[in-house]
């Protein structure tokens, strides 16, 4: 299964390296979201500092929707999906592979976003290790749900509108926990956020398991 996962992830990342959609379109989109939030909430520095973590994670959520859509658009072009299905790869491996590729792209986007958000909203990035752990756990959860729903919405003609409607309510707890945990980490009291970090971890484990099991029926037809 892991060999299959690495094959699929490698393929998706190669497509990304050659087309640069995530880097050239998704990442700038997320930055636009941050700037728009800044405009909407006004130039008051203390307000922006207070909501910066929330804005960062909302932008990351929206970027996830786009990254997942992109990941399944690759499979829709030239009926690549049928090729993937005929290749005899383990469905759980395909799930893990697509998830890994999306997660790799998201981590890059999140790093860019974090740096820009820190500059725009005047936040000092501290508590490095905890922040990394939060990002990894939250991204895993987001990507697990996103990949399952990406496959659910994949062949629907209304997929562009269906995916956000399905995805965003499910990951509401991730948003909540990630904001709380990173706020605690940035405030210099990371231990206050450990409970939230655990929640992120549980969410990620549950949905990775659900995805690995449910991906089979989704791709077999």
């Amino acid at each position, binding site marked *: 299964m892991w060999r299959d996962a690495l094959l699929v992830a490698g393929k998706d990342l190669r497509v990304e390296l050659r087309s640069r959609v995530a880097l050239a379109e998704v990442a700038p989109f997320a930055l636009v979201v941050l700037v728009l939030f800044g405009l909407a909430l006004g130039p008051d520095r203390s307000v922006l500092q207070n909501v910066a973590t929330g804005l960062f994670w909302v932008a990351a959520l929206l970027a996830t929707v786009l990254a997942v859509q992109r990941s399944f658009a690759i499979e829709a072009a030239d009926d690549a999906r049928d090729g993937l299905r005929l290749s005899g790869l383990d469905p759980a491996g395909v799930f893990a592979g697509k998830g890994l590729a999306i997660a790799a792209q998201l981590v890059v986007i999140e790093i860019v976003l974090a740096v820009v958000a820190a500059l725009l909203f005047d936040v000092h990035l501290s508590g490095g290790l905890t922040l990394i752990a939060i990002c990894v756990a939250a991204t895993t959860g987001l990507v697990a*749900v996103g990949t*399952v*729903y990406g*496959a*659910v*919405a994949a*062949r*629907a*003609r*209304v997929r562009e509108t*269906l995916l956000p*409607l*399905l995805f965003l*309510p*499910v990951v*509401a*707890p991730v948003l*909540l*926990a990630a904001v*709380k945990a990173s706020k605690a980490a940035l405030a210099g009291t990371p231990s206050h956020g450990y*409970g*939230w970090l655990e*929640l992120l971890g*549980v*969410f990620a484990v*549950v*949905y990775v398991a*659900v995805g690995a099991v*449910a991906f089979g*029926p*989704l791709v077999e*037809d």
Partner: protein
Amino acid sequence: MTVTSTPLKEQPGRAVDVASSPRRLRRSASTRRDRLVAALGLLALIGVVIDVWLGLWVTPPDQTLGNLVRLLYIHPALAWVMYIAYGIAFLSSILYLWPRTRSPRFDHLAGAAAEVGVVFTGLTLVTGSIWGRPTWGTWWTWDPLLTTTALLFVLYLGYLAVRRVPGDPATRAKRSAVAALVAFIDVPVVYFSVLWWRSLHQLPTVDDPVTGKTYVHGSMAWTLLLSFVSFSLVFLWLLIHRYRLSLLAEKESDELLAIAMAERRGEVAR
């Protein structure tokens, strides 16, 4: 979509298309089932009427909440039905995904339950909001139960959106079963995260029928109990009808397809 209800009684204009069908032979069995469902509907109606009468006229106003307490006779029962509905949708989705029990009937049942569940979620939100305005002074508060219910509403609207996607019924059934699975697992996670988020402010005590029972006595307790029973009956009645409608709608589209294909074959043969 408009579908005629089974069986087609005393409608000469419409009876033509079923007259030649073997379904007519099963008519006596289906009328018996119809009568049972109608009796269930009648029972539900009687229950609701008695509940309204008890709730509005017989029971006394509450010491602290006054007449507002009368919302207690609908709101918790609506929420209860909502959870039952989503539970049924979840279980039948699991049964559909499990290869040994896979049957289109479970898919129809899941869809019917979720649809009725969304209606009851909407009603729960509306009655909760009506309750909140005079008691808490606001239409909306970020209380764990309220927030969870609102997210549930959106989650299952998404599920219904998956069900509306046109395509092969088996593919759609699998997709929606997975969506139901993902959505239902999210419910406890959402609840506990929101509970935790608001833990400093407010705990769900007003909405909780279990803890609420400590100050509910006599006629009020009976009215509350009756509301649970009669709303459950209403739910069951709606569920059966929605389920049958769903089966009929599929049958209709299958038969229309068969007719269209037969016509097409006729054209080709000519």
